[in-house]
């Protein structure tokens, strides 16, 4: 018994050490980038000792940035969702005060130096219209009983002020016809008159102005009440000074900002971006429209791609040469943040839209020119297809000579140091070539701000960006309301004569129809890449056959269930087998299966509905889990303790469907259905009662994991399912879903408790599937756990082990510090994990996105196919040389001895 225990403990200790990282390996294979999100409010602190920026963002983050570099000095993350949304920030000398929350307003004071919380108080509020700070008092403007009431609170203590001011409610004509700026409310009345009144005092004096407008907006952060009134694309600026209304017309469409320059003088700063790579600024005195020459600038940068810049905060001063200088924190529509020196340049630039990644793909890099030449020469017949090279003896000889000459030249150049070795140059094109082990890839990330990024996976450097404004927007996922951007890699980098090709499905900006955006994932270039479709695509499926241009064509299924091929007019290389497509409507719970027979010409074909499944209302389809298309299952079965084999049920067409239905007795019922997407057969279904969000689903090989929050036991549980065929392989020759075996697979099931809350879950994937599987779990505490699947195996025995090496069942999953692959780099607000295989069987590349970006690589079964870093090459060389020499010497000696013996 004791020895058994020791064995188990020893075994498990070895299991965990797999995940360990040596101290000096930290940061060697991984990188992390911190972000704050799209800026909502900001303030500039130009105090020489601090020199900082304070920002509050739409990701509910309060942070301080260094003014010179834009680096994050401290960052505090507030509650998720509307409870933590920052409504107001107010900088004081030593504290940054934030007001956040919707129904319960929480006021917090953060230390400017290190972001520590100084104080916090909260109050319950209803029907809040506006919040503003004046004179150290928080003013809460709300509507109650046909009145507009203003409550005041002392900002730091939360003590309620003496008076509550009230105003007649008819004055407030709705939040889209009113705006609040610097404590003054401006509203259009029914007659189209603009009334401006102060909410700070309880007087009912109102200023009014005759102006026609259809939109009113307050200038953010203005020291005096100032509004922009838009009427048929003509913008006018209305401001109040010394109790009188002034009107100023604005010439250009640009974003404005007002800065108090001297006691009675204000600077009006305007910023616009006529092109994606240019920023134009203008400055003038607000009162007399005098143009300040030094503030007019035009900044162009080819790498810059922005749209609709807006000044979030600014600071102006007088320089030695007696000109006015400004620094402005500019946020843009594409959620980038930059510090602009006027006159001057962009000091730094942050791509905050990377906090809103909605789709990610890791794309292989193309091979280098030399390797391409070798490939052309020795490549096998299949890869010749796209090389278009002749195979005559003479031409092959010439090509051989040419490629060898080229190799020789590069060798000389490297030796003589004429060109730098590719590994040293970063960010240049020559560096973007495939390495030996397929570890260097490019991360293509689509963000909800409409910007696509190409990121180097080895150092996190942004290589290219593409703005989607003017191309299209995103469709919205109806269940969770998040934007979705399906992306298909139609041609990878393996085809030498063609560049890789990636297609993104977008929604047209002015209709429900689909726009296809095709680009090269290596450099972001797009040549005639925008295709407007006259229909809405509901499903896009890649064909198993390439077309003659080596493009994996997509079958686009439109909303009237007719299929189309993209690219449309290119014939296929061979006749594809009949393709089965399923479409799911998450809202009404309708699932339909179609069969499509694509002709070789790729023209004129139709779909036939073959199965239909209808979930009862109000069941919603919340997730569909299909296996990764790249996944291979290496072993077909498991060996049991009696040496018999338990065969896995491996159905390549199986998808897992999660449905959630509200229930009277169990609150909500989560059902997992396993569906054969070809035949429409429900293989298995299982009900989880009282299961609610967060729900995550993992489907890989022959097993599934479903994590949910159990409302009854109040904890996160992971249900694990595994499918087996039994002792005989049922579909041994070739698998067919139609008319296949009637016997349902054996389903092993077990549940585990996870001591924590999950944000994302994903299995590792390797090229051949030999390496054991680990599950990557991102928890709300910021850890990225690497849990061996053996711990989640539903066959973990409670009694005697059924097979060798099985770990006894323990209901709670271990969360060991050694298995946290992000060590001390906490990852907050994780949205997803992306895993992709490298060319090394042992290694899997991991990219985690959310508020922070984290990239690393994991080796679930240790790096069995690479030598260790500290491998002693010298010793092995010495040993082999000695052995060789001694073998040679002893051989001679032996022959001499044999000769002597023969003479005897």
């Amino acid at each position, binding site marked *: 018994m004791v020895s058994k225990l020791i064995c188990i403990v020893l075994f498990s200790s070895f299991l965990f050490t797999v995940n360990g990282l040596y101290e000096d390996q930290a940061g060697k294979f991984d990188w992390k980038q911190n972000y704050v999100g799209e800026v909502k409010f900001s303030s500039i602190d130009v105090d020489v000792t601090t020199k900082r920026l304070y920002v509050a963002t739409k990701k509910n983050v309060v942070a301080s940035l260094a003014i010179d570099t834009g680096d994050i000095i401290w960052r505090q993350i507030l509650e998720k969702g509307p409870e933590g949304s920052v409504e107001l920030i107010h900088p004081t000398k030593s504290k940054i005060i934030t007001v956040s929350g919707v129904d319960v307003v929480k006021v917090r004071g953060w230390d400017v130096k290190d972001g520590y919380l100084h104080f916090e108080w909260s109050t319950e509020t209803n029907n809040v219209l506006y919040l503003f700070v004046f004179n150290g008092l928080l003013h809460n403007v709300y509507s109650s009983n046909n009145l507009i009431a203003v409550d005041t609170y002392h900002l730091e203590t939360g003590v309620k002020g003496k008076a509550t001011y009230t105003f007649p409610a008819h004055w407030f004509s709705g939040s889209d016809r009113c705006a609040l700026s610097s404590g003054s409310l401006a509203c259009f009345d029914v007659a189209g008159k603009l009334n401006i009144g102060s909410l700070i005092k309880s007087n009912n004096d109102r200023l009014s102005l005759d102006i026609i407008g259809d939109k009113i907006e307050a200038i953010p952060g203005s020291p005096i009440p100032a509004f922009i009134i838009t009427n048929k694309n003509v913008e006018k600026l209305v401001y109040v000074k010394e109790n009188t209304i002034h009107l100023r017309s604005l010439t250009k469409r640009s974003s404005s900002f007002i800065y108090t320059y001297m006691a009675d003088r204000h600077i009006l700063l305007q910023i616009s971006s006529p092109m994606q790579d240019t920023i134009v600024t203008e400055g003038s005195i607000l009162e007399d429209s005098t143009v300040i020459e030094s503030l007019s600038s035009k900044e162009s940068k080819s790498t810059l791609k922005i749209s609709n810049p807006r000044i979030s905060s600014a600071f102006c001063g007088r320089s030695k040469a007696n000109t006015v200088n400004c620094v402005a924190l500019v946020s843009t529509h594409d959620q980038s943040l930059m510090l602009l020196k006027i006159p001057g340049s962009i000091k730094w630039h942050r791509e905050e839209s990377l906090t809103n990644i909605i789709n990610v793909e890791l794309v292989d890099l193309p091979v280098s020119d030399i390797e391409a030449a070798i490939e052309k020469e020795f490549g096998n017949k299949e890869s010749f297809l796209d090389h278009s090279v002749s195979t005559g003896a003479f031409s092959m000889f010439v090509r051989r000579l040419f490629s060898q000459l080229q190799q020789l030249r590069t060798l000389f150049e490297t030796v003589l140091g004429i060109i730098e070795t590719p590994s040293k140059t970063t960010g240049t094109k020559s560096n973007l070539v495939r390495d030996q082990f397929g570890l260097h890839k490019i991360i293509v990330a689509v963000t909800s701000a409409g910007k696509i990024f190409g990121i180097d996976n080895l150092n996190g450097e942004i290589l290219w960006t593409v703005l989607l404004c003017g191309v299209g927007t995103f469709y919205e996922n109806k269940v969770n309301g998040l934007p979705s951007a399906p992306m298909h890699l139609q041609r990878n980098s393996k085809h030498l004569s063609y560049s890789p090709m990636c297609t993104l499905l977008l929604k047209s900006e002015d209709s429900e129809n689909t726009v296809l955006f095709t680009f090269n994932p290596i450099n972001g270039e797009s040549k005639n890449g925008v295709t407007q479709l006259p229909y809405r695509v509901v499903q896009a499926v890649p064909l198993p056959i390439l077309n003659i241009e080596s493009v994996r064509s997509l079958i686009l299924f439109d909303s009237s269930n007719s299929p189309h091929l993209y690219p449309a007019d290119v014939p296929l290389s061979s006749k594809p087998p009949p393709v089965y497509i399923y479409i799911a409507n998450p809202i009404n719970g309708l699932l339909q299966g179609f069969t499509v027979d694509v002709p070789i010409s790729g023209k004129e074909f139709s779909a036939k509905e073959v199965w239909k499944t209808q979930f009862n209302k109000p069941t919603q389809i919340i997730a569909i889990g299909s296996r990764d298309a790249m996944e291979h299952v290496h072993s077909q079965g498991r060996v049991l303790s009696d040496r018999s084999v338990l065969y896995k049920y491996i159905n390549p067409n199986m998808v897992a469907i999660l449905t959630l239905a509200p229930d009277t007795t169990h609150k909500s019922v989560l059902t997992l259905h396993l569906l054969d997407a070809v*035949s429409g057969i429900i293989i298995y279904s299982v009900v989880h009662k009282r299961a609610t969000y967060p729900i995550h689903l993992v489907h890989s090989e022959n097993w599934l994991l479903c994590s949910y929050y159990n409302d009854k036991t109040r904890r996160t549980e992971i249900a694990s399912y595994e499918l087996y065929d039994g002792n005989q392989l049922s579909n041994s020759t070739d698998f067919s879903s*139609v008319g296949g075996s009637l016997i349902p697979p054996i389903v092993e099931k077990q549940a585990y408790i996870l001591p924590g809350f999950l944000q994302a879950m994903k299995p590792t994937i390797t090229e051949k599937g030999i390496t054991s599987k680990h599950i990557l779990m991102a928890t709300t505490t910021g850890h990225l756990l690497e849990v061996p699947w053996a711990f989640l195996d539903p066959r973990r025995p409670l009694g005697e082990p059924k097979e060798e090496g099985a770990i006894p069942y323990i*209901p709670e999953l271990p969360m060991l510090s050694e298995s946290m692959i992000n060590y001390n780099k906490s990852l907050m607000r994780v949205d997803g994990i992306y895993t992709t295989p490298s060319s090394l069987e042992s290694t899997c590349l991991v990219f985690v996105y959310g508020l922070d970006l984290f990239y690393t690589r994991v080796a679930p079964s240790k790096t069995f196919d690479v030598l260790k870093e500290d491998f002693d090459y010298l010793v092995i060389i010495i040993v082999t040389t000695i052995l060789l020499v001694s073998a040679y010497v002893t051989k001679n000696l032996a022959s001499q001895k044999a000769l002597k013996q023969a003479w005897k």
Partner: protein
Amino acid sequence: MVTILKRILNTMNYKLICLFCSIFSSIYCSDSSYDSISDVYLEHELIPNAGFTKRSSILVNLESRNDVVSISTINDSDIQLLKQLAFKNELYRLKVTVRTLSGKETHFLTFTRACLIVGSKLNDILTLHLDHLDSPFAVNLATTSSNCNSFDELNTNNFTTTVFFRRPETSPVPDTATYIQKMERERDAREKGKSNNNKSMLGKYWMYILPLVIFMMIAGASNPEARHVPLNCCIPKTLAGCKVIVSIASATLQSLKINFLNCIPSGSPIADNASVTNTSPSELIL
């Protein structure tokens, strides 16, 4: 007298049972007051893309909780069409309409290869999948045999349809109770084992430990510098238990205890194991 009493008691018993029965049935009725399935209407497509024609209608009673077997006849022209369909290796599509008692209709579509229908001599299986509220959400068609070659042997006009009902399984729950029981059982066994076999680790395994210690002593005496070697393992690098064990082998007796204290990373599972082995050599010194 006694028999009469018994009889009375018996009748009372029956009454009680009956009462129980009626309560149970009323509960049952109230439970099944939802919209129950009344019949399944089948239509099939015999000419590709020409539309569906009626095959049969099957009456279903969910309360009986039995699988339903129904036999229906189709005419000869339909049989010919079916054979043609099978010969061309087309798909046989079946439209299923499930009606409930209140008249609510749900449409489903399912298919199989036509040759399988003919090959199985018109024996088919319909699986009706019911959700947790017993309302159907999917219908699957299958045949009894996977024979796809012999179309000509078809000598019947009768479709033999078996209707199965499948309900979802319940989810697994973390089995904490059994685990706790198992732990208690193990603890009991350990306590029992202790009282029976009170020998210490050293007493039991002295034959393994002694050679190891001798070996270490020899190694330590021959190589005095080796004393410092185990200290290397105190660098946080050594997470692997094997290194600790190697270090024991090369350590001298004096440094052994110190090594253990320093080397084992706190909280790592090897600590339990190490403490067990730790006691034995120190006892040996004494």
